[in-house]
């Protein structure tokens, strides 16, 4: 199977993720869409690695996973505290630094 098709899939996933970030208000959904974009990138890295015949892309994909894991920890903590203070998980409600 032609590896370019995987690239199309990666582009599609990235677009879905980006659209989700832009149009959804729920912080959890926005967060998941970001994960989707990261994983679309990972997929593209792996495909490039395959196409060029070296391991650089795969190594970078691992790095991305580690960073994404760390980001999840911090991001979820922020979302939880946001929900506790404002009783809402909408990103639009958190438009001001003060309450």
């Amino acid at each position, binding site marked *: 199977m032609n590896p370019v098709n995987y690239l199309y899939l990666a582009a599609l996933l990235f677009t879905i993720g980006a659209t989700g*970030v832009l*149009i959804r*208000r729920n912080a959890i959904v926005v967060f998941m869409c970001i994960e989707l974009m990261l994983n679309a990138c990972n997929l593209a890295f792996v495909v490039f690695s395959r196409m060029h015949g070296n391991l650089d892309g795969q190594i970078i994909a691992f790095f991305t996973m580690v960073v994404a894991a760390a980001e999840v920890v911090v991001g979820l903590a922020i979302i939880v505290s946001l929900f506790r203070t404002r009783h809402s998980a909408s*990103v*639009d409600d958190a*438009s001001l*630094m003060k309450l």
Partner: protein
Amino acid sequence: MENLIALLIAAPLLGAALLLTGGRRLDSVGHWIGTLLSATSFVFGVILFADLLGKDAEHRTLTQHLYTWVPVESFQADVTFRLDQLSMTFVLLITGVGSLIHLYSVGYMEHDERRRRFFGYLNLFLAAMLLLVLADNYLLLYVGWEGVGLASYLLIGFWQHKPSAATAAKKAFLVNRVGDMGLSIAIMLMFTTFGTFAFGPVLGSVGDASEGKLTAIGLMLLLAACGKSAQVPLQSWLGDAMEGPTPVSALIHAATMVTAGVYLIVRSGAIFNAAPDAQLVVTVVGAVTLLFGAIVGCAKDDIKKALAGSTMSQIGYMILAAGLGPIGYVFAIMHLVTHGFFKAGLFLGAGSVMHGMNDEVDMRKYGGLRTYMPITFVTFGLGYLAIIGFPFLSGFYSKDAIIEAAFAKGGTQGWILGGVALLGAAITAFYMTRVMLMTFFGEKRWQPDENGNEPHPHESPSVMTIPMIVLAVGSVGAGFFFHLGDRFLNWLEPVTGHEEGNSPVGAGAITAATLVLLVVGAGIAYLQYGRKPVPVTAPRGSLLARAARRDLLQDDFNHVVLVRGGEHLTRSLVYVDHTLVDGVVNGTAASFGGLSGRLRRLQNGFARSYAVSMFGGAALLVAATLLMRAV
């Protein structure tokens, strides 16, 4: 012998330094130190004069190179003095009359507690004036020129506790600055034209320069002369300068400093000879001032201001003569010297009268003083006869020569200039007779001053009368002495050059006309002020008389044209500043303020709108990268 020249200047300069820095301990002897050093300078002058007389006419030029002042490549300014017949004449006049007036001031300033300072300023003036006439280049002359301006300022404002004196000093200084600008521009033009400003090279290579440039230099020199010599249009300061002590008026504002303009023009004769247009302007300025001063002199009741108008008028004669070119140079200087004698004498006489009359200056409050002040009366009277040109007295020879030279200019110009000079002689006779009659004849019109003190007119002490007597002798004899065997002409001719003009009228006819006009002028004055009693308060008078009392509206003219004009100019500049300059500055600030106000709206706190801009930016970058790769 050359080395004496610097000592001429050094003596009064030493006096000024001693008296102005010496402090109170010199108070008791300061005036004698000043007088002695001034007399020393006169003695040096006489020694040098005797030396010059011992040489033949072509070799009577001494130069002394003291040091090089500014040595920069082609810009060479030397402190070099030049003593020739022209500067010698001035040296003798300045130090001679100067010493007499120092002596007079010892008596006149006796009760002034700042007398030491006064003598310091007088010595400073002498040093600056000697520097002016002895300089061998225009730059050094400029130093002296500014020096006399400073001394004049200090002395006019000597009684600075009087606001009028302080204002008059400022006015004199400011008006003189306008003239000084002319001199500095002339020197710059000389440097660009000739590459030097020493007298010899500049005046010797006049033929190499274009006439346009020479005319420009000539007009700038004339502007300088107008400022220093109180000629129209820069005449307005001289009348107010009479606020200074009377010896100052006699020395600086009658006999010496105000004649510096005449010296400048005669010294630069070669330039004017090659620039007929500039010469014409010089004669016009002289002729206009001659009438202007004479008319002002007719209407003033203040004795010093009447004499100031007369000074202006007589210097107008000199400038007129200097503008006539080689026909007139010698006569301009001759009139300058005789005028130095009789006008200084007249001013000292006026000072003596004021001294006896509790410093009253209004002639309407004098009257009948001849029996109270016989010496003042006789010396003033001789000066009076000399200035109106009474036969065989000084003014007769020198003024007559100028009138003849004016006619000898030839053509219509000659007739106009000669006519103006003749008319001036008639008006001179009128206003001087008026001064004489109002002061010394008629009944007493004295009044107690505001403190109730009745004036007790008395003759001045001999320290004051002796200088007056000496000057009176000069007023009587100088003209005849100079005229005899054309002595003055032969003396000055090697420096200034001389030509006989061809006058359309004979010399005898001109002399006769002058004498007739003299009698007419004096006669009218006698009918008006001798036969009828003089009213103590001035009558309203005709329109001309009222204008003349206001100095022919010179200050009003200056106010309307210069002050108002200046105000309008500054107002419009302020308007431009507020609208244009501030507009640009404020507009820039406001546009940046507005722009940032709009940009601020982008920062709305909504995370999703930030995300849009990030995606947009990333998309743009990707698009740009692709585009660059495609190209």
